[in-house]
Structures are given as structure tokens and as C-alpha cells.
């Protein structure tokens, strides 16, 4: 008897409710096949309104110029780049869950990866808005593309981190989309084969590309997923690294520091997982998927949050220490006056960042708190607020008071159009998410089935006898040596 699907009973089940394959299909497809509920329409409606406000805000900025925002010397980057980095960071959790956790063979990722990957794509779409619209003369945006032209040909500046961003974000969006969609193909086929309405059959027929579930195709699919995961892993690290290079390659005190790349990546994973928690806590409740997105999933994601939060905390302390250690007065001023001094104009922002990112998440050291849904939801929002302030602090506190006191700007406040633009991206994000959750399965159906016989409640209960057996006997009788 081949027992390749054993796992220790110390590990709790990942699929509760004694499910079988058909029930999994039913549970996950039912919300997709049902008509949109009132709650969905309300949520979708609010998102669209926010999106429209964002469109109008962007219209104002494009028509009347970047002067519609409060950016000025010396604060050349404000809400625009803060929001850009914030959204890109959030997107990282999806790829991490899909790619890195696939390489680490973590079964729990199957409950959350589909929604997280979708979140990544929408977050990157939102992030990309900022570099585009902040150009001002957006109709010349194609200038960033290296194509043969009649201006020399004048090429783009490959030495500039801002251009590296163009390649990084486009690659990240493309690869995430491909990874997400190739994983979706089998599930779309499931929806197609279940569909009874003609328009559904047609829609999912087209979207599923003709997938049949042939073994050879699954073999290639597995190979594809593994290699995409292997590619996406360094990609995830590289994207936020390149974003951090926007700051670290400069000579600005508070920006130019070598720890930025891995510190930004850890921070991105931190905020990304927090956003996943926010989304999934609501999704699982509304779509009745608590048996697939279990408390175990929530808890392990909280563990990742405290791990990455602590790494971010170590990075903060390292930066503070090194600012002093460097004996460079400008570094010390940037950190100890512009940031850590609570009485300085932006000191309050620094302490919001510190409390939300370092202090409050420590509550997750306690198991009861990690498994408490209300604490998790509240904290996930706090973390994202903290991470927004982190980017704001990095960007604004380093530039609002730099070398020339006569150029110090006392305060940078956003205009209504900057706020509107930001709110508009929330509108874009949630509009996409609502559409996604209505027309696509929020959980990877095929992948859940794949882990059912190892991590499903019924199957784990059947492992009682095997758990009692000694290791030598286990090796003799239960391991298929021909495998």
C-alpha cells in the first residue's frame, strides 16, 4: 500500500467538514453560479463610485497639470509615490503565496492562493496608475519605451532606477497574470462543464481555452507551475528591490542605505499578507467558505505577519543605529530630527508607523490572538495604515527639510485631487475584486482536491492507526518502495 499522502496528526486539517471532491466543487462554484446578492451590489456600487471619483481626479490633474497636487520644491514626491510603493508592496503577498509557498510545499496555500494572486494583479494595476499619471504630460508616456525613433534615435536612460521600474512593474504584472490565469484554466473548465445557462457555457468555454484534464496536459501544467513559481520567486524579490532602488541609488540622507532592498521586500510581504487577511476574512464569511479558509490558514498568515513585521522592525533599528554610527550629520538629522523627534512636523507620522508596524503586531505572539478573527481584521488594517505611513515617512521626511534651511517646506498636505486619486485606486481595486469574486472561483478548486486526501478532515481521522505504529514498521509496511 503506497502511503504517500500521510501527514502527522499534530497538524490540523486544512479542509474541514468531511468533504469529498464533488462537495468541494459545489461549495466553491455555488457563489459563482448564484445571482449577485444585495450585499454584492452595494459593495460593487460603492467601488464604482470611488473609481469614478478617481477618474475625475485624474482628469483634473491631466487637464490642469501636476500643479493640482501639492508637490513642490523640495518635496518632489509625496502621495503619488507613497501610494505607488504601497500598492506594489501589497501585491507581493499574492506571488509569495503562489510561488514561494509552492516551492516550500505548504499545503495551506491552496485555500488562499487564488484570491491572493487576483489581489496581486489588481494591486499592481493600481500601483501602475501612479507612475503613469504623475508624469504630467501623460500623452508622451511612450517615451519610456526603448523603440527606434527619429529623435537621434534617442534611447531611454537604462541607468535610471525609474526606468528599471518600468521593466519591473510590467514584467511583474505580466508574469503574475500568466501565473494566475494558467492556474485558473482547470477551474474555468469545471465551471464550463457545470454551466447550464448558455451564456455561461459560452463564456467559460472561451475562457477555459478548451481544457480537458488530460494527463499529459496536467503533467505540462505541473511543470509550468513549478517553473513559473521558480521564476516568480526571484521576481517578487526583484520588483520591490527595484522599487527600493528608486530611493537607495540616490544620495539623499534617509534614502541612500544598502539595507533597503531586502527591507522593502520584507515590508511588502508584511503589508501584502495584511491585505490578504482583510480581504479573506470578509470573503470567507460572505461566501461561506470557512471550511476551506480555516482558522489554521488565518493563524499561519498571522505568523507570517509577525515574522515579516519583526524583520521590518530589525531593519528600522538597524537604520536608526547606522544613522548614528555613520557619524554623518545629515543622516543623523534625517533620522533623529526629521523622524524620531515626535515634536517635529512629521514626527507623529513616524510614531504611527512604529506603533502600527512594530508594536501592535507583537500581539500575534499570543496564540489566542492569532486565532481571533476580530483582532486579525483590526490589526490587518492597522498594518496597512502603518505601511502607508512608512512610505510616507521615508519619502517626505527625507526631502522636506534637507541641506538648505531656507528651502525647508513646513508642511505638505495633499489636495483633494491627490486624495481622490488614491481613493480612486481603492475603487479600481475593489471593483476588480468584486467582479473577480462573482465570476471566478476565489479558491483554487483543483488544488484543494489535490490536497484533500492528505489534509482533509476525514482522511486525517483515518490516520489514527498509522500514527500509533513505530517508525521501523511504518518504513517496512507503509512506504511504497517502488515509488
Amino acid at each position, binding site marked *: 500500500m503506497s502511503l504517500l499522502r500521510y501527514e502527522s496528526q499534530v497538524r490540523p486539517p486544512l479542509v474541514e467538514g468531511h468533504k469529498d471532491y464533488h462537495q468541494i466543487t459545489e461549495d466553491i462554484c455555488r457563489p459563482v453560479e448564484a445571482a449577485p446578492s444585495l450585499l454584492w451590489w452595494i459593495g460593487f456600487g460603492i467601488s464604482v463610485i470611488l473609481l469614478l471619483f478617481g477618474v475625475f481626479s485624474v482628469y483634473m490633474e491631466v487637464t490642469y497639470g501636476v500643479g493640482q497636487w501639492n508637490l513642490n520644491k523640495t518635496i518632489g514626491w509625496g502621495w503619488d509615490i507613497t501610494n505607488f510603493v504601497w500598492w506594489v508592496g501589497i501585491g507581493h503577498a499574492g506571488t509569495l503565496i503562489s510561488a514561494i509557498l509552492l516551492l516550500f510545499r505548504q499545503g495551506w496555500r491552496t485555500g488562499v492562493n487564488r484570491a491572493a494572486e487576483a489581489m496581486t494583479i489588481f494591486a499592481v494595476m493600481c500601483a501602475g496608475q501612479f507612475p503613469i499619471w504623475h508624469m504630467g504630460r501623460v500623452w508622451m508616456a511612450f517615451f519610456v519605451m526603448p523603440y527606434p525613433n527619429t529623435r537621434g534615435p534617442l534611447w531611454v536612460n*537604462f541607468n535610471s532606477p525609474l526606468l528599471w521600474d518600468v521593466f519591473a512593474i510590467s514584467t511583474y504584472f505580466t508574469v503574475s497574470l500568466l501565473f494566475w490565469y*494558467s492556474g485558473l*484554466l482547470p477551474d474555468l473548465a469545471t465551471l464550463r462543464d457545470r454551466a447550464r445557462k448558455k451564456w455561461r457555457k459560452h463564456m467559460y*468555454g472561451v475562457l477555459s*481555452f*478548451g481544457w480537458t484534464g488530460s494527463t*499529459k496536459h496536467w503533467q505540462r501544467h505541473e511543470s509550468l507551475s513549478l517553473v513559473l513559481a521558480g521564476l516568480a520567486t526571484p521576481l517578487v524579490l*526583484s520588483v520591490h528591490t527595484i522599487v527600493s532602488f528608486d530611493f537607495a541609488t540616490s544620495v539623499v540622507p534617509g534614502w541612500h542605505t544598502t539595507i533597503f532592498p531586502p527591507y522593502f521586500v520584507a515590508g511588502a510581504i508584511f503589508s501584502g499578507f495584511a491585505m490578504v487577511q482583510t480581504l479573506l476574512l470578509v470573503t470567507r464569511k460572505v461566501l461561506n467558505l470557512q471550511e476551506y479558509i480555516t482558522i489554521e490558514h488565518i493563524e499561519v498568515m498571522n505568523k507570517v505577519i509577525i515574522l515579516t513585521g519583526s524583520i521590518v522592525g530589525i531593519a528600522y533599528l538597524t537604520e536608526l543605529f547606522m544613522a548614528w554610527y555613520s557619524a554623518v550629520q545629515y543622516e543623523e538629522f534625517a533620522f533623529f530630527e526629521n523622524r524620531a523627534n515626535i515634536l517635529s512636523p512629521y514626527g507623529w507620522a513616524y510614531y504611527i508607523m512604529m506603533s502600527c508596524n512594530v508594536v501592535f503586531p507583537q500581539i500575534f505572539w499570543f496564540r489566542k490572538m492569532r486565532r481571533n478573527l476580530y483582532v486579525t481584521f483590526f490589526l490587518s488594517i492597522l498594518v496597512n495604515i502603518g505601511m502607508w505611513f512608512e512610505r510616507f515617512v521615508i519619502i517626505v521626511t527625507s526631502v522636506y527639510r534637507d541641506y538648505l534651511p531656507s528651502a525647508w517646506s513646513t508642511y505638505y498636505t495633499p489636495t483633494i485631487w491627490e486624495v481622490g486619486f488614491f481613493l480612486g485606486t481603492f475603487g479600481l481595486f475593489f471593483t476588480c475584486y468584486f467582479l473577480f469574486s462573482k465570476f471566478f472561483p476565489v479558491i483554487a478548486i483543483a488544488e484543494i482536491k489535490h490536497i484533500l486526501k492528505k489534509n482533509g478532515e476525514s482522511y486525517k481521522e483515518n490516520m489514527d492507526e498509522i500514527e500509533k505504529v513505530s517508525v521501523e514498521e511504518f518504513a517496512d509496511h507503509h512506504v511504497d518502495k517502488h515509488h
Partner: protein
Amino acid sequence: MSVKKFIVTSFDDEEILFPAIRQVRKSGYKIHDVYTPFPIHGLDKAMGLRDTSLHTAGFVYAIMGTATALAFMTWIFTTDWPMNIGGKPHFALPAWIPITFELTVLFSAVGMVLTFCYLCQLAPFVKKDHFRLRSTDDLFVMAIECTTKTNEEQAIAFLAQLGGKDITVEMKETEWWLGRYDKDDRHTLIKTEPEIIH
């Protein structure tokens, strides 16, 4: 555009599927394909399928990406229009690593996905003949190709004894065609009704 005759059976548990496949192959039948709702570890080996070389293709595409990026940037900044940007040398290799890396990943990923779709013949509006709709739900479906030597009654009894359910003999189109799943536009003109035995 080839319609063939198949004996189709479904299994509801992969524990039954594996030994069945072994027996079927040992008995000399030609398995056309096995359709499963999710990937099953070891199924491809059991069916005797050769390993895919998709990852090798991915590696080749990646090298193309690296080469393209490095060659392009080198040519632009050393030959075509060298410029003094911040005092950096014309051949500013450290600055080009990020873009080189991104293009490597991009070429590899896009190349592999397109190759995957091409090999599996997957694309929007592509339609293939399905044996059982539940093969994407909870059934494991095996299709055996009927040759002139196949004794259908024998085969059906054999499959039933191995645990197969709902065994039918059907005519199916083996290739893909462009079509809509909400229309029944199968290319086969065979009017024979499938013979349902079990």
C-alpha cells in the same frame, strides 16, 4: 478532423485508477488518455508518458532574454549614443543587472506559457470533444482506443471487473476545432448512438 471509436469508463477513486491502468496496459489495450479533475502524482509515469521538456524550453527562453537585454543595452550605451550619465562608465554593467534580470524572467515566463498553450492546444475559442463532463468535477475518466483487434464486449467486462463505472462505447473527435461550448457543433457526422452497457 479524425473521429475514432473509444471505450470510455470512469472511476471514482484514484486508488482504483492506478492498478486499473497498470492492468489495462499489461493487457495490451491502447489508452488514449486519462482525464482527471486535478493532477495526480505518478499518473503520468503509470501511463508511460515521457517527461515534459517544458522547463528546458523555459531555460532557453530565459537565456534569450538575458542575451537580448545585455546586448541591446551594451550596444546603445557603448556604440550608438554613449552619454555621460552621472559620471558612470559607458559600460555600466551593475546598473543594467535589474533590467537584464527582468527581461530574463519575462521572456522565460511568456515563452513557456505560449509553448504550453501550443503543446496542449489551448486557446480561446478552441473546443475539444469531452467524454464525461464530470471529469472536471470528481471522476477519473479513462478512454481506450478501439482498434480492429479490440473485442468490445471483452474489454467492457474487463474494465467492469477493474472497478470501472458507466462504461460506454463512443465515437469522438480527437482533434480540436474552433467553436462555442454552448452550441453542439461536433464535427462528427456519425449518427450512431453511444452504446451504454453499465
